[in-house]
Every structure is written in C-alpha cells, then in structure tokens.
C-alpha cells in the first residue's frame, strides 16, 4: 500500500438510527502520519462514526476503508494495525492492569504479549501494573486504554474524547503523549473531541462536524485563514461613521459591537483598505480613536460553524 494513500477513506458514510441521522453523508480522507482532530459538539455523531470505522456498528450507506481495507468486509486485516479507545476505556476491574493487557494480547496475537511491558512503560504505568484496575483513577484507566491500543503496534490510533475527565495536568501530559505518537513514532492519530482548545493544541488537521455532517476539513492554518476578517473601529460619532462607511463601495457590512465600536467587513482586509477607511472617516469629521484589523479566531470560527455562538439570551439582554 502506498504511503500517499489515506489511512482512512470515508465515502458518503451515513448512519441512521430509525429516523435520526447520526452521521450524514461524510466524505473525507485522513492522511498518514498526522493528527486529525474530529471536532464537534456533543451529539454530532463523532462516536457513531468511530464505531462504524472500527466495525462495531454498521453503516446505513457509504463505504469506509481503513488502511486500504474495507470495513466491515475485511475488518480483521483493517484493524490489525489499529488501536482505539471508544467513549471510555473499559476493563475487567477485578484483574490487574497487566492481566487486562494480557487478555487483550490474547486476541491480538503472540507478538502482542512481547509489547505489554513497553506499552505500560510508555504510559507510565509500570509501577501500577500489578494493581487491580478497580483501584485505578480515571486518568490511569485512560492511560491503560492507550497502552492497550499500543499492543497492535498501530499505524493508526483512534481516540474518542480521550481527555474526558482528566485534570489540567493530566490533559497536558496526555497531549504530550499523543504528539509523541505522531512526531516520534510516525503514527496517525484520529482524535475526536468537543473541546476545541484541546484539539487545537494537538491536531495538525481539523474536521468540524455538525449534526452528523462534515462542515469543514483542513489544516488548522487553513481554517483560521478561512474565517471572516474585519476592521474594528472606535469612533466618537457612530451615526455619522455608519453613514460614511455606507457610502464606501469596498465596505460589505457594518456591525455595532460596543457603545463606541464598529466591526466593518471589507472585500479585502489589508493596510490599504484600512487607510482608505480611516481617511474617509477623518475627512468627514469623524474622530477615530482606534483602527484594528482582526481575523476570526478558530474558536469563533468553530462556534460560527456549529451555531453555538448564537444571540445573547433574553435575560442577558434585559
């Protein structure tokens, strides 16, 4: 298989539960050796898609190829180089961490037994390996889940909301570990999350899903660049400024943000446009206290796309 071939290829993937469409016609390629953040609010079909990719659930339409093999037709070969955590890692609580990995290794093959100690060391659980999992903290169980995922020596790690329930220190540690899988090991990581901040820090590429549909897919830089750009003005006379700006043909929209501030959308946001804008205002007698070019942050872009920014609530208006 060529390394240029995507490690995951989703083509028109749809999953319905009765009348509810959980995954809606998703088409995407996941390139090798990168970390993709699959980002979306709760209930946007992230886990359902992962379950389909892992052969745990059947698609209603479309095809899924993992490592060049179709799932679920050739699931055994497709998943032989995949490690995963779905929703949360589950174990036999009465067995030790190491015994749990031995059970998993029994399903993977003989070579997996030889990887157990290294996997435990990689997630820093060697010291707790002989402790029953029921005595593990949530963070330790997450790490043990990652150790179990490593038993296949995976080309691809699929991690569903892996930082759920972790404290800030645990999250930072987890991020570092995920990045090391990509940068040191050359593995591909597919990570789903509803936490933009988390994904932004880990991922090379981001896909944003809303109501089961893929809305945007690209590198972090591309997504930020694709966001709306505006010039924020602070002026002494909003009414006159509005009227002047309304007469400029390169101004596409004017929005009042604060008592004395306006966000002005332009055909093109650059120094030339900003200077022309300021000159027109000053010539019309409007006092300009501040001119700032600004571009939507990834968070604003995410909230715009997923519709979560919304209008202020009624009680806040009151």
């Amino acid at each position, binding site marked *: 298989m060529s390394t240029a071939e995507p490690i995951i290829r989703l083509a028109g993937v749809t999953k319905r539960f009765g009348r509810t469409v959980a995954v809606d016609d998703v088409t995407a390629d996941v390139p090798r050796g990168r970390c993709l953040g699959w980002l979306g609010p709760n209930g946007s079909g992230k886990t359902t898609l992962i379950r389909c990719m892992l052969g*745990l659930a059947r698609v209603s339409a479309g095809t899924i190829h993992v490592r060049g093999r179709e799932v679920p037709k050739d699931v055994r070969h497709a*998943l032989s180089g995949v490690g995963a955590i*779905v929703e949360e*890692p589950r174990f036999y609580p*009465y067995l030790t961490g190491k015994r749990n990995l*031995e*059970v998993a290794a029994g*399903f993977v093959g003989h070579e997996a037994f030889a990887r157990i100690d290294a996997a435990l060391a990689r997630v820093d659980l060697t010291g707790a390996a002989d402790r029953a999992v029921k005595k593990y903290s949530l963070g330790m169980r997450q790490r043990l889940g990652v150790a179990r995922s490593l038993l296949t020596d995976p080309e691809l790690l699929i991690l569903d909301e892996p930082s759920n329930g972790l404290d800030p220190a645990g999250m930072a540690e987890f991020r570092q570990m995920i990045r090391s899988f990509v940068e040191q090991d050359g593995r591909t990581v597919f990570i789903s999350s509803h936490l933009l901040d988390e994904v932004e820090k880990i991922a090379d590429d981001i896909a944003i899903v809303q109501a089961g549909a893929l809305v945007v897919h690209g590198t972090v830089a591309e997504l930020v660049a694709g966001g709306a750009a505006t010039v924020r003005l602070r002026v002494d006379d909003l009414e006159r400024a509005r009227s002047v700006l309304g007469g400029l043909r390169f101004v596409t929209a004017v929005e009042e943000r604060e008592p004395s501030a306006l966000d002005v959308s332009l055909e093109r946001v650059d120094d030339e446009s900003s200077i022309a804008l300021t000159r027109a205002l000053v010539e019309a007698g409007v006092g300009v206290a501040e001119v700032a070019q600004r571009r939507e942050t990834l968070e604003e872009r995410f909230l715009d796309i997923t519709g979560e920014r919304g209008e202020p609530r009624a009680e806040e208006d009151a």
Partner: protein
Amino acid sequence: MTRALLRTIVGRKGSFFGTAGVTLAAVIVVAVVLVVVHTLRPGRNPSIGGQPMLDGVSGAVWLLGGVGAIVIGALAGSYDVAQGTMRYLVLTGVRRIVLYTSRTLALLLAVLLALAPALLVGLVLVFVLPSEPEAHVKPSELGDVVWTCLLWPTVFAVIAMGIGSLLRSNGAAVAISLFFAFAAAPLLGLVHAASPAVGDLMLLPALDRVTGADEGAPLAAAALSVVVWVAAFWSAGAFRIARDEY
C-alpha cells in the same frame, strides 16, 4: 484467545471460587455427616466410604455445582456487554462467532476446573473411607456419577451463557438462567401428560436418560434432544452477538 477468556471467567472470583469452594465444602460436609452417623449407629450405617459417599458426592456436585455452573455461565454470556468490554474484544477484528465459540470453550474449561476439586476429593474419599464389601463401588457406577456430575452442570452452563448473551444485565442473566433451570425446565416436563413421546424429549427427561435413566426416549433420540436444546440457546446467543452493535 480461549485462555484469555478463561482468565476473565476465572477472575470473577465470587462465581468461580464460590462454586469451587461451596461444592468442595458440601462434599466434606457429606463425609463428616457419614462419619458422624456411622459413629453413632455403626450397625445401621456400616459404611462411610463406598456407595453412601458416592451418592453424597453425586448429589452435592450435581446440585451445588449445577447452580454454580449456571451463575458462571450466565456471567460469561452477559458480563462483557454489561461491563462495556465487549467492544474492545470486537474491535480486535476477531470474528464474532470465533469469539463466541472461544468463550464457550473457556466456559466449559472453567466449569470443569470449578467442579474438579470437589469431584476429585469426593472420589478419593469414596475409596479411602472404610466401607463394607456390599457398599463397594463398581467402575461403571463411578463412571455414571462422574458423567452425571459433569454433564448436567456443563449443559446448564452453556444454556445460561446463551441466555446471558441475549441480555445486557448480569443480574437478569443469572436470575433468568436459574429460573429456566429450576422452574421452566421442570414445568416443561408436564408435556409428558399430553404426549409421552414428546415429553421424553424435553430437556430434563432427555438429560436423565442420557445420564443413566432406564426409561424414556431411545438413547440416541435423548442425546440428540439434549444437543438441540443446548444448540438452541447457544445459537440464540450467537445470533445476538453477531448482530449487535457495540
């Protein structure tokens, strides 16, 4: 894979060691009772070992071992789904029917391991404890008891695993499996009143016949009936495992 699954079954200490311990304790209690009654009235109870001990071992292992095997089997069927570990077994890519078959083998091994201490200790006591010549045990009698003590629990364990695989709750799996063994299966015997031929093919009469009863359906028909009963529950569980989404 079977070894890995055996670990998960044996690791549930409450059901596995509980079964092994209670069955072994029952055999020892039988021996103690026989010693006591022999000491109190040696003329009326001349033998401790031999046939009286064999009867006691048979009853203890058949009944208590059977109950324990049902609990072990029901949990083998339901636990992974109830605990959420099933998806991690499935996403290894192992075919689900292979997983289910391996689990069945692991269950059979676990039941045999759980019953082995009681059965072995009991059989040793049959020969070690003193008995009159007329109470001596023939090899065929010994074989019958071993066969009965192993077949009944394993049959009900596999049926319980099938029931457990249909459910997503451990408690419900155990309760329904026990209900089937101790209420539904005996009630099915009532069919005999309407049709003796069909009644003989119900699970309990067929098992009785296969484990030494002189009356009932022809032996081959009874054996086939037991296989069909077990296969029906096993297949229902297999179907659910194959179809379910995790």
